[in-house]
């Protein structure tokens, strides 16, 4: 049994409730450029016919996690339910994982000199709750659930998102229009 994200970008209203909830729950430090979850806003086409894409992205807890593979001290581990996490007591802050992650999930905390990333709020999952971000998304743009339910929905990739064939990220995108 594992979990994943289901993103429906057309429903995203850029409220950043997901970012805020994550920061609150995980006590993520501020103003040092560490954000486990980020609403990524990209301009896709120029004026006078602009197109903008917004994607709320965190860690995709990939089945083939390159971060785990390249960590020289084996600080990055996987739970039985597939959630990938960085053991802070082992991490030495070499930043190799940062180089290899296609999704920029591991972030370097310049104060602690270690890598941090989204943990899928496994402490909440263990209590039968959803991750903080999905809990607070007001429009259902960001959903979390069992991967077996999500994997068949939507597409595995959207513009600007690395081809999932490399790391098998647990995220799907609803691309169907209104």
């Amino acid at each position: 049994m594992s979990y994943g994200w289901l993103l429906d970008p057309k429903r995203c209203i850029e409220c950043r409730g997901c970012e805020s909830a994550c920061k609150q729950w995980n006590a993520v430090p501020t103003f040092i450029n560490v954000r486990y979850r980020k609403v990524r806003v990209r301009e896709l086409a120029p004026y006078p016919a602009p197109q903008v894409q917004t994607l709320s992205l965190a860690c995709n807890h990939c089945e083939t996690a390159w971060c785990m593979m390249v960590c020289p001290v084996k600080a990055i581990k996987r739970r039985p339910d597939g959630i990938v996490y960085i053991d802070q007591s082992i991490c030495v802050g070499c930043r190799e994982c940062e180089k290899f992650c296609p999704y920029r999930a591991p972030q370097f905390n310049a104060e602690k000199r270690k890598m941090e990333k989204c943990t899928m709020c496994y402490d909440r999952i263990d209590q039968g709750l959803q991750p903080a971000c999905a809990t607070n998304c007001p429009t259902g743009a960001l959903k979390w659930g069992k991967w077996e339910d999500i994997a068949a929905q939507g597409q595995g990739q959207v513009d600007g998102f690395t081809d999932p064939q490399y790391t098998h990220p647990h995220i799907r995108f609803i691309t169907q229009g209104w």
Partner: protein
Amino acid sequence: MALLIPSTLIHTFGSLRKDGEVIMLTRRSLFRLAGAAGGSLLAGSRLRGAFDEMFQAATPAAGTQVLTSSCGICDSGCGLRATVQDGVLRFLQGLPGDNNGGGGGLCAKGGAGAGLLYDPDRLKYPMKRTNPVKGFDVDPGWVRISWTEALDTIAAQFGNAIAQYGAESVLVVSRPSPDIWTRFLNSIGIVNRVDHLDECYLVNRIVQRYMTGPMAWAYDFVNSKYIVLFGWDLLAKGKLVFARGIVDAKANGAKVVCFNPQYSATGRFADEWFPIRPGTDLAVALAMINVLLSENLYDQDFVANYTNFPAYETQIRSHFAQYTPEWAEQQSEVPADAIRRIAREFGQTRPAVVPAHKKTLCANHTNGSQLVQAINVLNILAGTIDRPGGRYAARTLAIPTVDAVYPPPAYPPKRGRRVDGKDKLPLVLEDGGGMFSTLADGMLNKFPGMIQVAFFNQYTILGFPNPLRITEALKSVPFIAVYDFLPNDVTALADIVLPGTIYLEANDLVTREMSSKYPIVLARQAVVPALFESKSIAYVAVELGKRLAPNYFKTSDGSWINPSVLLDEKTKRAGIATNFAEFAQTGVYSQPAEFVPSTTFKTPSGKCQVFVPEFAAKGYDPLPVWKEKRDLPSSEYPYFYLTYIPAFQRRNTTENNPILTEMLPVNVANISTALATKLGVVEGQTVRLRSRVGAIELPAHLVETLRPDVVMVAHGYGQRSKLLKVAGGRGARDGDVIPDQSIEEVMAAGNFAGAAGIMDAVVAIEPC
């Protein structure tokens, strides 16, 4: 014969000279010296007493509670669940099932509420200044005082000013607050209560009174099929109740058309987006009316039965004939054929609505009065006034006011001159709202020296256009009291500061004015005890009332009005629960009922009024006319200046919150890549924006989402106050380039409902 040991000695040398011998002071030697004294210094001494004073017997830990409440950061009032552990707030999430609020979610602002609650910069104790010199860079010399002393001082100041100079000498700059506060102000005959509503929904409220009856802002988006947005960035404004409405509308197949110089988050949701010339939405609205009329595409049944259109049909048709789509294209740069097509679609795709909320349509530009008037005509013609898919009067639960629970004696008449000049605008005068845009001019030019005492209730200087001018005006006020929870810029000018509670620390009843198709009330309950010595504005109202107008603050048995008893009474009399605490256990009360559309409307004629004879009687236009916005591009100031509020910011509650401010650490000058090329500006380069009243400097940010004659800046930055660790000195103050107004300017512009023009400015852009 004690030796004086200057600390510099200890500090520098860590040593003592005793009898000619230098002793190195280390921790060990310190202990030895102390040990040599003999006798416990703690037992039976004042230090022991001090310990007993500072500590008490422990009570058991409170454990974990989950409390239901309602967010108070914006008016969406989304239901929330607060997880509180041992008296400390740990997490805020949405209330599942809150379908006419956050839908179970919470936006960034609401989710980060703990950051406001536990902001170390919060005002904590009542304080008075001891340094008479006031200024942003001057140390006020604050000392703590008791609430009693603070209230006594404020009451004395109020009382003396009123006795000596009349009620007009007291300026109360106050946010809409619980009704007990209004009672206090009424009980002492306050004339100059001023709020920011001219920058907000004043125009809407005034115009609706005569055109559709009061139904400010509930929209049945889920059933709308055609939504036209003039500049209202529903999504980026961040009120979940509306944002979710648009998502619902789209999911149900609605078409959304967006007229906005910026391709905003809402633009992303729109089926069509037009980069309209700023301040010309009025032209497009007038042209749409022209098309609906000339092609008879309006809702004939509604118009015939529920409006005064039939009585004035000839005048109406002849009036709008001039506003052709071709004419509108010249003003707005929206192609005429698009305007015609959209108007046709609007007329034929039902239900259709043009939502108008607050600032964006009412107050962005000085032709807001006319724009709101035109939009009401559009909605009336579309037949969606209090109809499914349109704007409707929220069926809020009738909750007795304080005056109903404790009937007061007759209030004294309000005698005196309005410092903001709103008495020159009869329609504004009959409304309760006041005017920020004319306040500085009133205080400096019209009535210099009139204001002796000012009381600020939860406002900052950032809330004014041209903040430098209002600062100048306030500096000459002899006594200023501030009630707030964060020490923003106004605090630097205050004589007394009162620490206020935030929504997480106070109890209230929240009626869902923006979304009640049937009555729904949420309990906003304190999830933690009020921090330090913060108190609610209701407490302040009663305490000042006791001192200044005791007859208005007694209950029928002669005891003082008590805010929590008042809340219990309201809860009980509204039929919600026997008292507030009982209500707070479930937190939600509703009376589901079918939505029955109105057949009469609360206008003077009982019908929706397309033609407003009451406006004509006062010398205004009974039908909307074209007016330009106040400031137009010139060779000296070629570019339109626009502002916006990021979805994760809300005035005075979020700018000092690191989680939220990190999302946009400094505001920037957003300009199109085309404009940047023309100016020779690169990404990140500092530019100066200069208008006829001021200038700001900030980094340029290049985007594809703006017209090339526009620069757009986020509001809420540029607080001077060093008292705010996160917000202080951060970013540029957008208001510095926005002109304030004199009441004469407002009148001369035909701005009959007092629109503030809160982003009505043009600038030069100078690379630095």
